[in-house]
């Protein structure tokens, strides 16, 4: 395993299991290698991903593509304002022939669930999904049913200022390990996109590069990436800085600190290292922390600049 590469060097390492995944993905979604890497790191760290952007930016394509490449069983839920919890978790139907109820699992019983436009649904419905995310199981009519493993949710949401949205409350945002924004593609990528006529169809032809059954093993490998004492000091210092900084209304929770470390491990593992470096922490801090912090001025989620300022206020031990 290559030891000392900070970023983006997996493709150079042919033995890395995810090199091909990253390669393939950046050919489907053009010009967004960092975001793709963040999404995969999120999955490897065993967390759920929230993608926030305007419609048409490739959120769904990204989810679809990941399911394909990783060989995950995929289901998609389009959240609307009239969606009910049972539409997600499933219902029991009475069968006259057998004279009994039969459970018909909802779309949540899949390995990769794409919850599209999650903030269009009512809080009640949102919470049904979020509960499943947290527990890894669903309880319907008094019976607890485990969800498949791995279980990975990619939720997309429109920016909160759009009409007809129910913004996710803080407590539920905290359940997403990362929140990323795709943003507009750059000029070159957009040109290629226009020339090829869209990537959505292309995802259908992708074949899986990783067996879904391998994923838990890889995840446990990620979790064992070494985080030395000075690195943990650094994570702790960053978390404390968010708590004492006047730029934010409140600081990061202990759960967020754990999330930051887990994401940094995945990032290091993706770079082919068996130890976490401060670079990894710095790289994953924005997607892990931004949706968990509220800016003291304006009250919105923390901006990328505020996170950069925060990073500059904490010395690396």
């Amino acid at each position, binding site marked *: 395993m290559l030891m000392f590469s*900070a970023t983006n060097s997996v493709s150079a390492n042919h033995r890395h299991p995810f090199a091909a995944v990253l390669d393939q993905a950046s050919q489907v979604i053009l010009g967004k290698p960092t975001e793709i890497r963040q999404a995969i790191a999120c999955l490897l760290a065993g967390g759920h991903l929230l993608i926030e952007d305007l419609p048409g930016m490739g959120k769904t394509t990204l989810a679809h593509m990941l399911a394909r490449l990783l060989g995950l069983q995929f289901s998609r839920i389009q959240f609307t304002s009239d969606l009910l919890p049972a539409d997600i978790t499933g219902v029991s139907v009475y069968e006259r022939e057998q004279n009994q109820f039969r459970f018909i699992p909802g779309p949540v019983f899949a390995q990769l669930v794409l919850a599209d436009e999650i903030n269009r649904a009512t809080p009640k419905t949102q919470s049904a999904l979020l509960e499943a995310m947290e527990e890894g199981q669903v309880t319907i009519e008094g019976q607890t049913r485990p969800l498949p493993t791995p279980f990975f949710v990619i939720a997309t949401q429109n920016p909160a200022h759009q009409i007809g949205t129910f913004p996710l409350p803080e407590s539920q945002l905290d359940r997403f390990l990362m929140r990323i924004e795709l943003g507009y593609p750059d000029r070159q990528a957009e040109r290629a996109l226009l020339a090829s006529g869209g990537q959505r169809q292309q995802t259908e032809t992708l074949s899986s590069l990783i067996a879904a059954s391998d994923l838990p093993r890889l995840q446990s490998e990620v979790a064992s990436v070494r985080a030395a004492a000075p690195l943990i000091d650094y994570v702790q210092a960053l978390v404390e800085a968010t708590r004492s900084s006047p730029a934010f209304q409140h600081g990061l929770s202990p759960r967020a600190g754990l999330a930051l470390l887990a994401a940094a491990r995945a990032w290091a593992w993706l770079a082919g290292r068996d*130890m976490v*470096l401060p670079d990894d922490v710095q790289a994953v801090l924005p997607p892990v922390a931004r949706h968990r912090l509220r800016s003291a001025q304006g009250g919105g989620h923390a901006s990328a600049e505020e996170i950069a300022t925060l*990073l500059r206020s*904490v010395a690396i031990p």
Partner: protein
Amino acid sequence: MSTIARLALDRGAPPWLFGSALLATAPHALHQPIWLSLFSGLLLAWAAWLWWRDGRLPGRWLLIALVVLACAGILLEFRTLFGRDAGVGLLVILASMKLLEMKSRRDAMVIVILDYFLLLTHYFFSQSIPTGLWLLLSIWLVTAALIRVSGGAVCRPLPTLRHAGTLLAQALPFMIVLYLLFPRISGPLWGLPQDAHSGKTGLSDTMSPGSISDLVQSGAIAFRVRFDGEPPPRQQLYWRGPVMELFDGRIWRLHPGPTAAERIEALRPPVSYETTLEAHSQRWLLALDAPVTLPADSALNGTLTALSRQSVDQRRRVALSSALSYRFNPDERPPVITRNLALPAGINPRSRALAESWRQRDASPQAIVDQALRLFAGNEFSYTLRPPLLGDNGLDQFLFETRRGFCEHYAAAFVFLMRAAGVPARVVGGYQGGEMNPLDGYLVVRQSDAHAWAEVWMAGRGWVRVDPTSVVAPARLEAGIADALPQGEPLPALIQIRADWLRTLRHRWEAVNNAWNQHILGYDPQRQRELLSRLGLPDADWRRLAFVLATLCALLLAVVTAWTLYHRPRRDPASQLWQRALRHLRRRQVDCAPWETPHALLTRVESTQPLLAPAFRRVVEAYLGARYGEQQHQLDALRQAVKQLP
């Protein structure tokens, strides 16, 4: 090159500075002219407004004009720019004005230092407990402001305040050591300017109708006494002040000539006690009638008044003893007799006639004294703080018409009658009684206990005290002035308190104040010597003191340093080598910011110092392996790589 000091202030810092400037200047409003307080307040408000509105700070010329204006104002007010009042006034203005010049951290530091200095100046004016508490609070906040200014926006209010509190708490041992051991000088800690002793209340050296009744309306404490044994009964507590022998028909005055100490014979064993005098700008020590032993720098004069060599301009503690029963000058010198018989011609004819009739009936002095006391006792004389105004023949009017007066009226009338009847007599001013504070055993004597009585001379018996007030209002001597006066007299509320809990509260507060005066402010060279000899350092001169002080401070510092060193996180060897590599880079003009990762630094080195890059890459790789991979062999590699840096 920009330094930390030149950095711009962040927006959150000025409120801290406004706050500390307000704390440092506000108490001066109690004694400085109103225009000065208004001026500095307006400057502060202006600075705050500009901050609030993000306005532009005023230009240099406007500031210079304001400084000139302020100086002119101070010159007009005080006729000087120096001295206590003018100097402090100038400082207050300049400190407020500096807020309008707050551009960089350096300016903020100047403000903080000015505030610290201004806090010190409060001790010129008051050394009371509230002042001490205010200054503690202010020092805390000014220190917090200093931390906030240096730390920038990362400092949140509560942790900053906590940090300042911790710093002050750490300074406490040093403060105590310095307080106890710093060589004390007798007199005030610093040479106070000349104008520091103005406006003290107390007995004056003349007496006219109204002078004592004005003084009585103050509840301020005149002095405190602690008796060595059982305190004498209240009726005998006559605290002797100035003795007035000259009378011009209206005002009683001291005899100006030098009078030597006379012979006094104690008839009973004297009472010893210790008096703590408040400053009153006069020389008398207000000893119990009549003093027999006095402190070294004071003496008795010919009228039995204990006088200090210098006026009592600051709180002072003296040890005295007095004989409550005594014989003084049984054979008085003729000039004194003559002086104490003199009366201005032609005034108060009715009083003179009355005195003449007494003398014809029985010429013995004792009989005449008894006659006079009978007159006061039997003719519905009343004791009041608000006597009617009297005309030219004031005594006639008082004795035969109004019959309402305060102790100075009775003493003056009595002495006039005595002199008219041929008995030498004079007026004695001072205090009578006092209130025992049961909490600390100190007798508190206030301005409201001010009193005037008479003394007559009888051949063979000497000067004998006669207090005509005692027959008009016996309660004055037995219970104090609040009980002697009718309801509704303009006495200070403080001494009229009758509710028990309030009285206890007042006693407690005064006992605390007294303890503060005795132990904190009264810690003088003598007490220091006592303490040091108890600590095993008899007759320490200042050299020895300085030595002990330095040793103790050094010990304290050593303890603190050892403690900090012990608790310092151990530097990782990889980290130490990395720091060495960074120093190497710094010599090559590459600085590493504290938040910069080794890889980010490497990227920078690759672009700016390509020759150095390969060697530095080896350092980075070995460092990361050693520090974050915890691999022992990488440590050796790192050592090698750092050595090989060109």
